[in-house]
C-alpha cells in the first residue's frame, strides 16, 4: 500500500523530468504526460477504494537535525485518497484536453511537463504527513503557476500576470513560513500527528495558525490577496482550469482541513478566517456579476467558491470535522474544471472569451452546450448536481456551528453564505442567458455598442480583459484544428461527473449532510436569484450587468483598483529600495571612501612635510641628533 502512496507523488515528478527531456517530440511528450497521469489516477483510485490509514510512510528518511524532528512522512487515509483521486482525474482530463488545445503551440512539451510537476506538488501536499512536504508542495505549485501563467511570455500581460501571481502569493507565504515554523517549534517536530497532538504555548499556536491562514489567503485568493487570480487568466485555459479546479487555490482548504483539530481550539485564527472568507465570497460574487469576460467571471466565481469552502472550516463545529470543506473542494473541482475546459473549447469556436465575442455562441453546439449548462447549474447549486449537495453541506455545517454556540463568527458565515447563494445564482443565470440567447435577438438593441466601447476602455486599463489573447491570435492566424474526440470526451466525462459526483462525497465522513430546511431555503434563493436576472434581462436580450451604472461598473470590472493598490505597494517597496541603494552608496560606502580620502590626505601631508628647504631640514635633523646624543650621554652617565 505504502508504495502506491509514494508512487502517486514520485511518478508525476518523474513525468515532468522525462517530459522536459523529450519536449521536442510532441507525441512522446503527450504520451508520457497522459499515460503517467492516468496511471496515477488508477493508483489514487486504489488508495481511495482500499484505504489503509497509516501516518508513517517513509520517504527519504528523517533529517538529522538534532533538536528538531523532521521525519518527512506521508499520511494516507480516506480523505487523502479521495482528494488525490479527484486531483489525478482532473489533471488527466487537463492533460488530454491540452494535447488538443495547445497542439500548435511551440512550447507544448514544456507546458505538459509543468502540469505534471504541478500535479506532483499538489499530490505531495495531499499525501504529506509532515509540514515540510506541505510547504514544499505549496511552493512548487506557486512556481509552476508562475510558469503556466507566463506560458505565452511573448506577451507583456502574461509576464505581468505571472509575476503578480507569484509575488502576491509569495508575500502571503511569509505568513505560511512563519506559521509552519511556529507550529513545528511548538511540537519540536514537523510531523503532522505530533503537531496535532502537541500541547504547548497557546500563543505559539495562535501565531502558527494565523500565519497559515495568511498563507492560505494568498494562495486561495482571499481578500486582500485576491487580485492575482483574475489576472492569472492570462495563462492558457487548461492552466486556468488546473489552477482553479482542484489544485493550487484549493490547496489552502486542504491544509486548513488537515489542521482542523487545531483550528477548532483556537478562536482567533478561526475568526480571522471566517471574516476573510465571508468578505471574499460576497465581494467576489458581486464582481463576477459585472465581468465582461467569461474567463474572468469564472475566476471571480472561483474566489467566491473557495471562500465558501474555507468558511465551512471556519464555522463548522469541532465535532463535525472538516468534511464539509473537503466536500465542496471536490465538488467544485469537477464543475470548475468542466467550466474552464468548456470555456476553452468555446473560445476556440468563438475566437475569444470576451462576453462580446462569445455571446450567443453556445446555442449551436451540442455537447458543449449541455456541458456548460450542467456546469453553470452546478455552480449555482441546482439539485441534483454535485454543487447543490456540497454547498448545502457547507450551509448546514455553518448553521450547526451557529446554533451550536459558534457566535458571531458562525452567523457571519451563514449570512454571507445565503447572500452568496443568491449572487451565484444570479451570475450563473446571466452567463447562461448571455451564452445561450442567439445574437439575432440582441443585435437590434442599441445599447450593446457602448458596452463594447466600455469593454475596450477597460481592456486598456487592466490589460487583462480579453484573457487568453494568445489563443485569439492563434485562431486568427491560421485557425485552430477542430476538437478531437478525446478532448470532447473529457468535457463530457467531467459533465457526467458533475452530475454523479455526489456519490464520491458519500464515502467521506460528513461529506454530504444536507438539512431539509436550509436546503429548501437555498433552493428558493437560487430560484429567486435566477428569476430576477431572467426578468431583468428581458429574457436574455439585455446583459444585466449593463443595467449597472457605468460609474460603478467600470471600477467593478477593474476589480475596484486593487491592482493599482498592489502597484502602489510595489512602488513603495521600489522607492524604499532606491533609498537603500542610495544609502548603500552614500552612507555605508562613505566610510571606506572617507578612509581612503583621509589616508591619501595624510600621505600627502606627510609628503609635504618632507619637502621643506633641504638646508633647514638638515639643520633640524642635526639638532635632533645632537640633542638625542646629549640626552643619551647624560642619561648614561
Amino acid at each position, binding site marked *: 500500500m505504502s508504495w502506491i502512496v509514494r508512487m502517486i507523488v514520485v511518478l508525476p515528478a518523474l513525468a515532468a523530468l522525462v517530459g522536459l527531456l523529450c519536449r521536442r517530440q510532441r507525441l512522446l511528450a503527450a504520451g508520457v504526460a497522459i499515460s503517467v497521469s492516468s496511471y496515477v489516477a488508477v493508483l489514487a483510485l486504489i488508495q481511495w477504494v482500499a484505504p489503509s490509514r497509516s501516518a508513517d510512510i517513509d520517504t527519504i528518511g528523517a533529517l538529522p*537535525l*538534532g533538536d*528538531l524532528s523532521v521525519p518527512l512522512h506521508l499520511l494516507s487515509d480516506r480523505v487523502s485518497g479521495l482528494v488525490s483521486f479527484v486531483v489525478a482525474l482532473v489533471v488527466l482530463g487537463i492533460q488530454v484536453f491540452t494535447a488538443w488545445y495547445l497542439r500548435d503551440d511551440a512550447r507544448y512539451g514544456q507546458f505538459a511537463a509543468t502540469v505534471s510537476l504541478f500535479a506532483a506538488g499538489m499530490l505531495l501536499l495531499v499525501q504529506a504527513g509532515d509540514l515540510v512536504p506541505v510547504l514544499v508542495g505549496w511552493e512548487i505549485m506557486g512556481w509552476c503557476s508562475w510558469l503556466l501563467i507566463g506560458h505565452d511570455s511573448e506577451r507583456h500581460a502574461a509576464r505581468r500576470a505571472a*509575476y503578480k501571481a507569484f509575488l502576491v502569493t509569495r*508575500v502571503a507565504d*511569509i505568513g505560511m513560513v*512563519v506559521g509552519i515554523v511556529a507550529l513545528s*517549534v511548538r511540537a519540536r517536530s514537523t510531523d503532522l500527528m505530533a503537531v496535532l497532538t502537541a500541547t504547548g504555548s497557546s500563543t505559539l499556536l495562535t501565531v502558527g495558525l494565523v500565519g497559515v491562514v495568511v498563507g492560505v489567503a494568498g494562495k486561495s485568493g482571499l481578500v486582500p490577496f485576491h487580485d492575482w487570480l483574475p489576472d492569472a487568466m492570462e495563462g492558457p485555459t487548461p492552466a486556468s482550469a488546473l489552477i482553479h479546479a482542484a489544485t493550487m487555490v484549493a490547496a489552502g482548504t486542504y491544509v486548513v482541513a488537515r489542521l482542523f483539530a487545531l483550528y477548532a481550539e483556537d478562536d482567533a485564527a478561526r475568526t480571522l478566517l471566517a471574516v476573510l472568507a465571508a468578505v471574499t465570497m460576497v465581494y467576489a460574487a458581486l464582481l463576477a456579476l459585472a465581468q465582461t469576460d467569461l474567463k474572468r467571471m469564472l475566476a471571480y466565481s472561483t474566489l467566491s467558491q473557495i471562500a465558501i469552502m474555507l468558511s465551512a472550516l471556519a464555522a463548522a463545529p469541532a465535532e463535525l470535522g472538516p468534511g464539509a470543506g473537503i466536500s465542496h473542494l471536490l465538488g467544485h473541482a469537477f464543475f470548475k474544471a468542466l467550466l474552464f475546459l468548456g470555456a476553452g473549447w468555446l473560445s476556440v469556436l468563438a475566437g475569444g472569451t470576451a462576453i462580446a465575442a462569445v455571446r450567443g455562441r453556445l446555442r449551436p453546439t451540442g455537447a458543449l452546450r449541455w456541458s456548460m449548462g450542467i456546469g453553470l447549474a452546478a455552480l449555482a447549486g441546482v439539485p441534483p448536481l454535485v454543487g447543490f449537495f456540497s454547498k448545502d453541506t457547507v450551509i448546514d455545517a455553518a448553521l450547526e456551528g451557529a446554533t451550536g454556540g459558534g457566535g458571531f463568527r458562525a452567523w457571519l458565515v451563514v449570512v454571507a453564505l445565503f447572500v452568496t447563494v443568491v449572487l451565484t445564482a444570479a451570475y450563473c443565470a446571466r452567463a447562461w442567458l448571455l451564452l445561450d440567447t442567439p445574437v439575432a435577438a440582441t443585435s437590434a438593441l442599441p445599447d450593446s455598442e457602448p458596452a463594447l466601447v466600455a469593454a475596450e476602455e477597460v481592456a486598456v486599463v487592466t490589460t487583462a480583459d480579453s484573457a487568453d489573447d494568445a489563443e485569439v491570435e492563434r485562431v486568427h492566424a491560421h485557425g485552430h484544428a477542430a476538437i478531437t474526440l478525446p478532448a470532447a470526451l473529457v468535457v463530457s466525462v467531467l459533465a457526467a461527473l458533475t452530475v454523479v459526483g455526489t456519490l464520491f462525497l458519500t464515502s467521506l465522513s460528513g461529506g454530504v449532510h444536507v438539512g431539509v430546511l436550509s436546503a429548501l431555503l437555498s433552493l428558493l434563493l437560487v430560484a429567486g436569484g435566477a428569476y430576477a436576472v431572467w426578468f431583468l434581462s428581458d429574457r436574455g436580450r439585455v446583459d444585466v450587468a449593463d443595467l449597472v451604472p457605468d460609474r460603478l461598473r467600470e471600477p467593478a470590472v477593474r476589480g475596484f483598483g486593487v491592482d493599482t493598490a498592489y502597484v502602489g505597494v510595489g512602488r513603495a517597496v521600489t522607492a524604499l529600495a*532606491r533609498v537603500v541603494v542610495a544609502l548603500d552608496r552614500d552612507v555605508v560606502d562613505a566610510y571606506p571612501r572617507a578612509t581612503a580620502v583621509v589616508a591619501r590626505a595624510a600621505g600627502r601631508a606627510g609628503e609635504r612635510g618632507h619637502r621643506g628647504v633641504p638646508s633647514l631640514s638638515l639643520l633640524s635633523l642635526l639638532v635632533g641628533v645632537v640633542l638625542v646624543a646629549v640626552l643619551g650621554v647624560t642619561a648614561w652617565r
Partner: protein
Amino acid sequence: MALTLMLLLPLLGAIACIAIPGESRVERVIALGSTVVTALLAVVVVWGRHEVDVPWIRSLGVRWHFGVDGISAALVLLTALLTVAVVAHALSGPIPRGGTGSTFLGCILLVETGALATFMARDAILFFIAFEVVLVPMWVLVRRFGDDHVPDETRADAAGRFVLFTVLGSTLMLVGILFLVLHQGTSDLTVLAARHGAGLSHSLQVSIAALLLVGLGIKVPLWPLHTWLPSAHTIAPTAGSVLLAAVLLKMGTYGIVRLAVATVPYGVAQLSPVLALLGVAGILWGGLACLVERDLKRLIAYSSVAHMGFVALAIASGSETGLQAALYGNIAHGVVAALLFFVVGDLKEQWGSTDLHVARAALRDKAPRFGLALVVGLAAALGLPGLVSFWGEFLALYAAWSPAPDRPVALLRVCVVLGAVGLALAAAYSLRVARIVWAGEGSDTAHGVAAEPVADAHGARWGVVLTLVVVIVALGVLPHLLLGLSHTATTGLLSGLGVTP
C-alpha cells in the same frame, strides 16, 4: 599522505603554471590535471577522514596539522570539485584579457590551495596563513583579468577594495587569534574547541569573539561591511566571481563556526543579537538593493549578501539545527551562486555588459540551455523547495525561532519574520531578472540588441552548467547527503554549549 599531496598538488601546479612563460598547451594540461587529481584526492580524503599532524614551526608551537571533519568535509568537496568546473570552464573559452593564460590558471590553482588549506587547517595560526594565501591571487584575477569594458581605474578600485577590506578583516582576526592563543597557551583548534572557552574570563571571551566576528564578518560579508563585494563581483572574470562567491565567502562563515563559535562560545552568545540583527539587515538590504540594481552581476552580489544573512542568522541562533542550517546554507549558496555566475559570465562575454535596462532577446527562445540554467539558478536563489537553498533558509528560520536557551528569543523571532519578508523580496528580484532576461521583457520591439542572436551554451561549458543544475536539484531533493555529513560534527561542536535536546 593523500592529504598533504592534495594540498601540495595545486600549489605545485600553480608554481609550474606561473613559471611557464606565455601561452602554451602545457599549462592547460597542468591546470586541468592537477585540479582533477586534487578533486579525486579530496574525495579520498573526505571519505577516509584523513588527518596529518607533524611539527612545523617548533619555536612558535605551530604544527602542520590538517584534517577533515563533518564541518569542513562538504566545503572541501565543494572547493575541489568547483575548481575543476572553473578550470574546465576557463579552458573552453578565451582567457580574459589582461595577462597570459598561465598566470590566470596559476592564480586559480593558488586560490584553490589556500581555500583547501583554510578548510582543513586544525591550527589557528595555520588557518590564518591559509586564509591570507588566497588574497593575492584573487587580487591578480580581479585587477588584471577583470572586465576590460571598464576603465582601468574601476578595476584598480574594485581590486583595491577587495584587498584592503579583506586585509583589515584578517588583521582583526589575527589579533583575535593571538589573544586567544596567548591566553589558552595553544593554537591547536581541536584543543581549543575541546576547552570550549574554559579558562577565559567572560569579558575576554566577548572581546575575542568581537574581534573574530568583525574580522571574519568582512569576508562573509555581514551587512555594513559588504561594500567591497558588489564591485569585486562585477569586475572579476567569471572564474574570479565563481571562486569569490562559492569559496571565499564560505571561508568567512566557516571561520566563524570553527574559530569563534567553537572556542569562545560565551562571547559569541553575548554577541549573537548583534549578529542576528546584522544578518537580517543584510537579508533585507540585499533584497531591496536587488530590486532596483541594473547590473546583473552586481545584483547577484547583493543577493549573496542576502543569502549570507540567513547563514549569519542561523549561526546566531546557537542551536544545533542552526549550525546545520548555516553549513547547509553555505554550501547551497556556493553552488547556486556558482551556477548563476557561470551563466551570467557567459552572457556577459557575449553581450559585453549585463545591464538589465538594455532590452535583449528572450533567453527562453533564443538560448534555451542558458534559459533553463538561469531559471533553475533564480528559482534556487528565491529558496524554492526541492532546490538546494530551501533547506538552509527554512531551517535557519526555524532555528532562529527556537534558539539556544541563552539567546534573546523575542529579538530572534522578530528577525525570523523579517527574514521571511526577505524571502518575498528574493522572489521579487529573482522573478524580476527572470522576467527581463528569460522572458525577454522589453524585447517586443525586435530590433537593435534584442534581435542579435545569442549563442547557446555548448561543450564543456554546458557540461559544467548542467552538472551544477543537477547538483542543485539533487541536494534539494535529498538533503541528507549534506546534513548527514555535518550532523555528528555539529553536535560535538556545541557540546557544553548548554543546548537542551
